[in-house]
């Protein structure tokens, strides 16, 4: 039996997803909100970027289901003990990449190592040359077969991918005809994108079994695998930071704008103070504090992964802390405006309680600000992580993240010949996510706030 391991960040991310789904099904958004979302998803760009984001989130969720494998049992004791290596469901899918470790660098699709090694010839002579990789291209006899093999495997994978995706797309189209006839979603482009994703994935799995598609890193771990594992870090960082920031911003922003007076002064003092501390310094100081906390409570963090996870959560929280002030200011201003409206005054006159007014009249009217700022902040957090990794206050070094990859890639680029695939992989994976998030957030902003908030970027 495997033993499930539940990290705090896993709990939070699943809670967040469940919460969002619950919110949308039970809250029955107003027709105006529905229309706005419709505007987002109607556009091809909006829907396709949404799909890409969903793919990333899906991978992140898969990677958030952790477990430990049991150790082989011994005769002495019947009790089962578990390995302290924590795996996730995603590792099971990409098991080939996890296990197939080389000794050190190898280029994408290489079958020889990237650095020379001392070896002994049959006659016992010492010489230095590029050794064969243990796994990458190990089924080949020599280098001349490689190109042919890659091409044939690619063709096969494409063929397989196209067949599977046509089946998928066909069934979607069939369902569409019967159920969603006349849907507003851009089904054709969505299907095309789906086909590309599915085919691409199949290609990765097919070729990943024989080669290191994006090469290996310094200790011979597969770079593609690292980049995929980093998805969880990126996604969680962006979403959990929002999870921490939004409640603060809502509570403080609305109360400041609604109650005014002393409450307003106190909250304004709080956020001016916080926002006048430079973010980087705040983050650096907080991360160092967390390190100390972990050190003083080592018994709670007996596994490396717990420690990394706790630090990661703290980083999310501190990201939240640095970002809530902007949203808070916006909410305060908007609440000031909304609470002057006649119907709010009327509600008060009828004796509706403060909580009633806030939840029923004010909150719905400022919710769009929350949505927009959350989506806008998301890409900023993902980008910030790489900078923090450089300063040395980013996520734990044992965690896979694009920031850590870029940081180590700096050294690799100065090698000659340069090791370019690590930085390229981090770049591509990060770029796709951030680009999608940015395009999607543009769409969301256009839909929810065609005029009012265009200057939000300036304020934030």
């Amino acid at each position, binding site marked *: 039996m495997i033993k499930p391991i539940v990290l705090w960040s896993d709990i939070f991310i699943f809670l967040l997803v469940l919460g969002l789904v619950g919110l949308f099904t039970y809250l029955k958004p107003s027709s105006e909100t529905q229309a706005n979302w419709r505007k987002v998803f109607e556009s091809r760009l909006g829907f396709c970027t949404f799909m890409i984001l969903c793919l990333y989130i899906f991978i992140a969720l898969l990677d958030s289901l952790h477990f430990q494998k049991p150790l082989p049992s011994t005769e002495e004791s019947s009790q089962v003990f578990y390995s*302290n290596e924590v795996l996730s469901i995603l590792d099971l899918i990409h098991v080939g990449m996890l296990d197939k470790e080389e000794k050190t660098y190898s280029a994408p699709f290489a079958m020889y190592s990237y650095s*020379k*090694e001392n070896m002994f010839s049959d006659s016992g002579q010492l010489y230095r040359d590029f050794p064969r990789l243990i796994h990458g291209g190990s089924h080949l006899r020599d280098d001349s077969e490689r190109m042919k093999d890659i091409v044939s495997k690619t063709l096969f994978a494409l063929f397989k991918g196209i067949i599977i995706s046509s089946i998928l797309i066909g069934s979607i189209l069939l369902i569409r005809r019967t159920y969603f006839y006349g849907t507003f979603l851009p089904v054709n482009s969505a299907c095309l994108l789906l086909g590309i994703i599915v085919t691409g994935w199949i290609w990765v799995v097919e070729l990943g079994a024989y080669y290191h598609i994006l090469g290996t890193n310094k*200790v011979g771990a597969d770079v593609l695998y690292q980049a995929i594992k980093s998805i969880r870090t990126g996604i969680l960082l962006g979403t959990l930071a929002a999870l921490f920031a939004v409640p603060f911003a809502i509570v403080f922003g609305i109360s400041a704008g609604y109650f005014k007076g002393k409450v307003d002064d106190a909250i304004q003092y709080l956020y001016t103070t916080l926002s006048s501390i430079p973010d980087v310094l705040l983050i650096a100081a907080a991360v160092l504090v967390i390190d*100390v906390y972990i050190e003083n409570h080592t018994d709670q963090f007996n596994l490396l992964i717990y420690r990394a996870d706790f630090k990661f959560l703290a980083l999310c929280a501190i990201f939240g802390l640095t970002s809530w002030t902007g949203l808070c200011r916006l909410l305060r201003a908007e609440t000031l405006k909304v609470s002057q409206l006649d119907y709010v005054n009327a509600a008060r006159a009828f004796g509706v309680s403060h909580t009633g007014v806030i939840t029923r009249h004010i909150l719905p009217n400022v919710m769009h600000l929350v949505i927009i700022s959350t989506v806008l902040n998301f890409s900023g957090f993902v980008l910030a992580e790489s900078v923090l990794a450089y300063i040395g206050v980013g996520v734990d070094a044992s965690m896979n993240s694009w920031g850590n990859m870029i940081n180590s890639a700096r050294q690799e680029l100065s090698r*000659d010949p340069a090791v370019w695939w690590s930085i390229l992989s981090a770049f591509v994976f990060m770029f796709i996510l951030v680009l999608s998030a940015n395009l999607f957030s543009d769409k969301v902003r256009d839909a929810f706030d065609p005029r009012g908030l265009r200057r939000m970027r300036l304020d934030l």
Partner: protein
Amino acid sequence: MYLATFNQLNDTLCSDELWLMINFTSVQVSSRVVLVTSFLMAVSVGCADKNGNWNNPHAPEKENIRVMYSVFTSPPKNLDPVRTYNLDEATLIDQIYEPPLEYHYLKRPYQLKPLTLKELPKLEYLNADGAIVSEESEYVAYSRYTFELKEGIRYQPHPAFAVNDFGQPYYSFSNESSAKKYRVLADFKRVGTKELVASDYIYQIKRMADPRLQFPIWDIMSNYLVGMKDLRKQLVQARRDNPKVWLNLDTFSLDGVKEIDQHTFQITLHKKYPQFKYWLAFHFFSPIPMELDRFYNLPGQQEKNISLAFHPVGTGAFMMTKHDASSEIILEKNPNFSAQYYPYEGEMKDESIGLLMDSGKPLPFLDKIIFRLEKEAIPIWTKFLQGYYDRSGIGSDSFDQAVDMSVDGIALTDEMQRKGISLNMTVEPATYYLGFNMLDPVVGGYSEQQKKLRNAIAIAYDEQEQISIFRNGRGEIAMSPLPPGIFGYQSGERGLDKKVFDWVDGKPVRKPIEIATRLLSEAGYPGGRDRITGKPLVLNLDTTKNSGDAARQNWLIKQFNKLGIQLNIRATDYNRFQDKMESAKAQMFFWGWFADYPDPENFLFLLYGPNSRTGSGGSGVNSTNYNNQRFNELFNQMKVMSNSPKRLQIIGEMLEIYRKDRPWASSFHPTTFILNNAWVKNFKPHGISQVTLKYQDIDIELREKRRDEWNKPVVWPLWLFASLCFLVVLPGYLAYRRRQTQKVI
């Protein structure tokens, strides 16, 4: 009023931009782009050096000035010779200060020779009554060193030595307000010099007792040097009485030192301390004249950092003329330096590799050494290859570019050879190790089982693989704590660590993992599980935070997994790590030691029980807290002996005890590879001493030539960029024209 100007501003801006837009005809546009590019070039050319290298990071130098370009990676913390105890700072100040002795530049094994002395200090042994006895005598209570200084050695020019017509110090003021006009050291325009005398050395020795100065090896020196503890007591009292006033240490007495005449003095130590002679070549024993201390302690000077910590002053070949920790530190030739010459003798091979070409020529050869702050390894390497730094180490990432391991051994790659770069390899007199905390209930202790557990780990931890993956083979597996070049080190089968290695076909081979598994089973953990409870054995490795990335962590975990042991890596920041070491909470850890002097005592004391870290309030060097009675006894015996077969035999016995107890799982001696560009002459690395720059030389013509060859700027990207701009602008302009002339209907 303000608004009006604002509008005007707008107007001018508009017309300017309009002009730009109107001129958007194709020919003119391209000429503008060319203009822009040529401006860029003009800027670059304007600041290129005289040969047109755009990327020269150094300011131009005067003709025929021999400048060496070097780096420092972190700002020096304190350059006071009584404080400094690290390599980076020593690289700077050891060129400036001259202790009584120095190491011979070329000879190996390391050999001491007089520097400011006429000859090596005369050593006599005294009994408790002060009468001279022989070395072997059992009544030896004191050892007395007599130093005779050379005459005519003069200090670098410095304002502290400036005197007025009456021979009184020129700069002297009693309150801060009169010090206001001197903001930095360079504001003191008048300089002077003085002769090196015996009291300068004595003054520095007294400074060691000053509690404010935090002398790093106080524990050692105060135990040997007669009267040091008394002097400290006096100084503490004096400081308490007058906390703000400068103390002239000449007014305090120290029993252990005696000035015989202006050029002769004596130092008396308790008992015997043969290693003392090595300290005499260390900058701790540099001369500091009272005049200098007085000058730096004038009112307001310390606050402005006009102090020894920032501005060293000495008699050496170089003097520090600029100290800007945020960008560069400059050493220049000391004009008062004379009468030192390049050595005639060296090792056998030195003559053939041209190290004796300059024999007998006066030192130093260089006029100036510029140390630039470079925090990152990458720019150093790139600039070295561009010829802008004269010397570089090799990081593991640039290794394959630089070095080729071939049948004949290690050689430079073709690229490096084409550039004329030369390679120096030296095994450092240093040892890095993976230590166990011997006070830990699991991995520590002295029972047979605990020893077996440690031995099993020692076999499983493949140091060779670590060296080849993470250090590119730049290291030598250690068979004992003693590195090569230190007395007691033995190569070949005689020095083999038989608990971990077998001797097969003339080389050491790590014992097979099965033996480790068996040992682990005998230790009570078959398959890495507790024999009784079946619980997996989880060990903790404590590291500092930045001591390795995920890759290295995975590798470490793999090593212990070979035995079924689960490894938990606890990374903390440096402070916390120190805390843990002090309170013996760490379980396993990495540590290292660089030799202070070439004597086995300097390494074996890392395992001497009374030096253990926890017992000594954190000042001990024995991080493992290893304590073996027999080992301690032998250590005390070995310590006071001079190198002899008897000493070797005792060391051998100590090493056997160490191997049986195995407080260190594994250790290695780092090798440094140093690359020099072809124009660097007379370079020979010295493992212990940093006093090397005065011997070195630069061929500046060759450097100029090579720099020109290597740094031809590639201009086509600029043109490509210009044409790209043009390609974007042209259709834009056409589209605009079309739009303007479009009919509305």
